[in-house]
Structures are given as structure tokens and as C-alpha cells.
């Protein structure tokens, strides 16, 4: 039996979850009482099952790397061709509009320009290794990759290298907003775990109030795949004033982090909070944590939180 077109279309959209809430409700009511529609729905469901047997072509990482290299070559050739065209067009039009005297003058001017360009490029080697120092400036170009992060605990000096158009080297303390921006990026997005760890370490000891960096550290503490990075991020956050956001992150870590050392850092941090809503969480950890040492620490922390005077004595 043929169904009206609108109804068949509704069946297809229902299967693809493309009906609005009300449409979906109406359709489900209709289908409950209409056998022909139910049969059609079953047919389309079977079709979906059959379509799952289509073999899909998936490129390997190697294929993509090769395709990117080809694209890079092609774009480079295009740029070269465009530059050559512009240069010849410019030169041709400059020479064509003049008489013989002007042509000589143009030639002389070009010679002079060549000398100036030569002089300029002679000092170009300095450009290749230049070091940009930016103090307190936030308008940085988009970062594409962080090269290295170095931190000298003695002087508190942080040096980060990252790529935009050129490699940029930036030195300053973590109090510097530009340094913090690059560190936040490295903590969040750097693929090399050593650099993420170095970036987290570089933030230690800073007395900054920076939302972007705080969020990056919270994300590192909760989600980084490397235990060392999560642990270091927990230590850094513990030393900061515990905001509501940080407190919540520590609670989540206490509940879900598989590493007991990181859970203990979370306990320590929560013990500083001295708020009553933390008590049931500590009680839960003291009772249910699967690590004996964490349970013990939680009991002690709980005792300190519930009876601060007793512990002080």
C-alpha cells in the first residue's frame, strides 16, 4: 500500500532523528495506531541495516601526510608564479610608458633599488636568529606550535619558543601576560607531554590572576593523559587562592582520578577551603576511596576540618 508522500517523508526524517520535538511526538502517536506506516518504518529500518554494509574508504595518516606535502609544493609553485608575473608586469609597464631618456633613468633607478635591497639583505642573517622581546603585550599573532619551554626556578625566568610566521622567542616572568598566554596554549594544546609538563612547571610560584591560565591548569589537572602533568598541575593550583572553579575541579579529581597521589593533592587543597560543603565529600573519601592511604589522609583532613581547634592543640 502506498502512503502519502508527506507521511513517507516523515518516516525517513524520523529515522534520521530530524523531526522537531512536537513532530516526533505526533509521529509516534500516529505510528502506534497505523499498521501501514509501521510496516513502512520497518522497511526503512531494514534498509538502514543493509546500508551499514557499505565499505568506506578511509585515508591513513601516511596518505594525509603525503597529500599535505603535495599541497604545500603546489601552493609554493603558485606563489612563485604569481610573484614572477607581478614583477614582470610591473617592470614592463614601468619601461613601456617612457621614452629612451626615461628608460635610462628607470634603469638607473632600478640599479639603485638593487643596491639598497642588497644592503638590506646583507644584514638579513641577524633576522634569521632574532629574538623578540615583548613586555606585557597581549596582541600576539596566532600560535601554530610551541617549540620549547624553559624555566629557571632561581631567577623565575620563563623562556618559550613558539611558531607563527617565524619562530619567536619570548622571555619574561610568569607575571607577564604574553608569557601566560603562550603557557596556557602549551598546557592546553601542545602534543609533546614534556613541553606540557614544562609549561605547567613554569607557572609554579607565580602570583597571577589569569582566567585563561587557570582554566588551562584545571583542564590539565583533570584531563591530561600523563600522570606527571596532572600531578604538577594539581600542585600549582593548590598553591593558588582556591576559587570556586578550582574547588570544584579538586572535588572531581578526588572522585575520579585513578592516581592516589593526585587524589591526595586534591584532599590537601580541599582541606584549605574550610567550608562545610566539603565535609561530606571528605567523609565519602575517608569511607570509600579504594586506596588505604587516601582514606587515612581523608580521615585526618576531615578531623582537621570538623575540629580545627583540637588538631591545632
Amino acid at each position, binding site marked *: 500500500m502506498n502512503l502519502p508522500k508527506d507521511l513517507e517523508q516523515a518516516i525517513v526524517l524520523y529515522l*534520521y532523528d530530524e523531526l522537531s520535538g512536537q513532530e516526533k511526538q505526533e509521529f509516534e502517536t500516529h505510528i502506534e495506531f497505523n499498521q501501514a506506516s509501521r510496516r513502512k518504518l520497518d522497511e526503512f529500518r531494514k534498509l538502514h541495516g543493509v546500508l551499514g*554494509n*557499505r565499505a568506506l*574508504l*578511509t585515508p591513513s595518516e601516511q596518505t594525509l601526510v603525503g597529500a599535505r606535502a603535495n*599541497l604545500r609544493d603546489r601552493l609554493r609553485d*603558485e606563489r612563485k608564479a604569481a610573484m614572477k608575473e607581478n614583477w614582470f608586469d610591473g617592470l614592463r609597464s614601468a619601461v613601456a610608458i617612457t621614452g629612451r631618456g626615461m628608460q635610462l633613468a628607470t634603469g638607473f633607478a632600478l640599479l639603485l633599488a638593487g643596491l639598497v635591497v642588497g644592503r638590506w639583505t646583507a644584514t638579513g642573517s641577524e633576522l634569521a636568529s632574532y629574538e623578540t622581546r615583548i613586555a606585557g603585550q597581549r596582541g600576539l599573532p596566532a600560535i601554530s606550535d610551541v617549540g620549547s619551554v624553559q624555566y629557571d626556578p632561581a631567577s623565575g625566568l620563563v623562556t618559550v619558543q613558539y611558531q607563527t610566521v617565524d619562530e619567536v622567542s619570548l622571555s619574561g616572568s610568569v607575571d607577564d601576560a604574553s608569557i601566560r598566554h603562550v603557557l596556557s596554549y602549551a598546557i592546553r594544546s601542545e602534543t609533546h607531554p614534556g613541553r606540557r609538563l614544562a609549561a605547567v612547571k613554569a607557572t609554579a610560584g607565580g602570583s597571577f590572576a589569569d582566567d585563561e591560565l587557570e582554566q588551562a591548569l584545571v583542564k590539565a589537572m583533570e584531563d591530561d593523559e600523563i600522570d606527571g602533568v596532572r600531578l604538577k598541575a594539581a600542585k600549582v593550583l593548590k598553591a593558588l587562592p582556591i576559587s570556586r572553579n578550582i574547588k570544584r575541579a579538586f572535588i572531581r579529581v578526588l572522585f575520579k582520578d585513578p592516581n592516589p597521589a593526585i587524589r591526595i593533592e586534591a584532599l590537601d587543597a580541599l582541606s584549605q577551603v574550610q567550608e562545610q560543603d566539603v565535609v561530606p565529600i571528605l567523609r565519602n573519601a575517608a569511607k570509600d576511596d579504594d586506596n588505604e592511604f587516601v582514606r587515612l589522609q581523608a580521615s585526618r583532613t576531615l578531623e582537621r576540618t570538623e575540629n580545627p581547634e583540637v588538631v591545632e592543640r
Partner: protein
Amino acid sequence: MNSDERAIIQEAQRGNIVAFESLVKKYDRQVMQIAASMVNNAHDAEDIYQEVFVRVHRNLRRFQFRSEFSTWLYRVVVNYCINFQKKRRRNRAFSLDSDFDQESMGWQLTIADAEKTPEQSMLNQELSNEIDAALDQLSSQQKLVFVLRHYHGFKLKDIAAMMGCSLGTIKNYLFRATQKMQSQLRDHSHA
């Protein structure tokens, strides 16, 4: 679009090739997969990839942040795929077939619901060929909508934005495509 992506696009618009390459790296797997599932041929998919990104590079300055960058990029992909399909249909008699060894080019053939026995695997391959043949019976637009929704999971409103059509038109393409697919694969879907 987050602020980092916006900044990267602006850098790429100013001619920063590193920024452009980071955009390529972010989206190229999806671009390649869409192309592959449309043309079902690794070699053609790689050609489409190159042409699409060269066009995006040439026209990037025209992107004015009125839509998501991904929508704009996929619009270039779908337009190119539709034209490619039309051209291929016209030149079918002269085109190379797709029987060369795609796996040796670094591509994998994956079947989501595949069974593991060799017999089942052979049957799956036959069925997969039949599905491809049925897809080839659809118009370019119907095929594109069907492939993007069924195999790539794009929502219809996003497909409408990519193809520059109304949502109603896209719904109609999906419906017609499903009807035709059912008719082509009747022996299987009624079993």
C-alpha cells in the same frame, strides 16, 4: 568558532602559510573522507583534496566570518564534488576504472557492520558494490545529501548551509534518495 581559530584564519588571510597549513591539518581528514565517499575512489579523492584546498587558499580573503569556517570549507568541497560527479558521468566511457589497488595507496576499506568470516566478508563486499551502484543511480545532489547524512552524520540544517539550499529542499533530496535506494536494494531490504 573560537578566538584561536578566528586568529589563525585572519593570519592565513594575510598570507601566512603556516596558519593556512594548520587549518588544512585540522579539516583535511574530513575533506578527504567526504570526497572518498562521494567518488568511491582513492585517486579521485586525493585529486579533489588538492583542488579544494588550492581553491580555498585562493579565495580565503573572501571569507568574511558570516558562517563557521567549516561550513564555508565544506561548501567548497560539496560544490567541487557535485561538478566532479557530473563531469565524470559525462566522461564515463573514457574514465579509468576504480579497480586499482586502493589499499596499496595507503587507504583502508572499512565496513561498519562487517562480519568476520571470509564467506561473510565476500558477501559484504558484494553487497557494498551493490550499494555503490545504487548510490550512483542518484542525482549528484541526492547522493551528496544522502552520503553526508547517512555516512558522515551531518545534520540536515548544516547540509543545507553547505549546499546553499533551503532545509525543505534538502529534506526532499534525502527522501527521494532513500526511496530510490530502497527500490534499488529491494531484494535486501525486504529479506
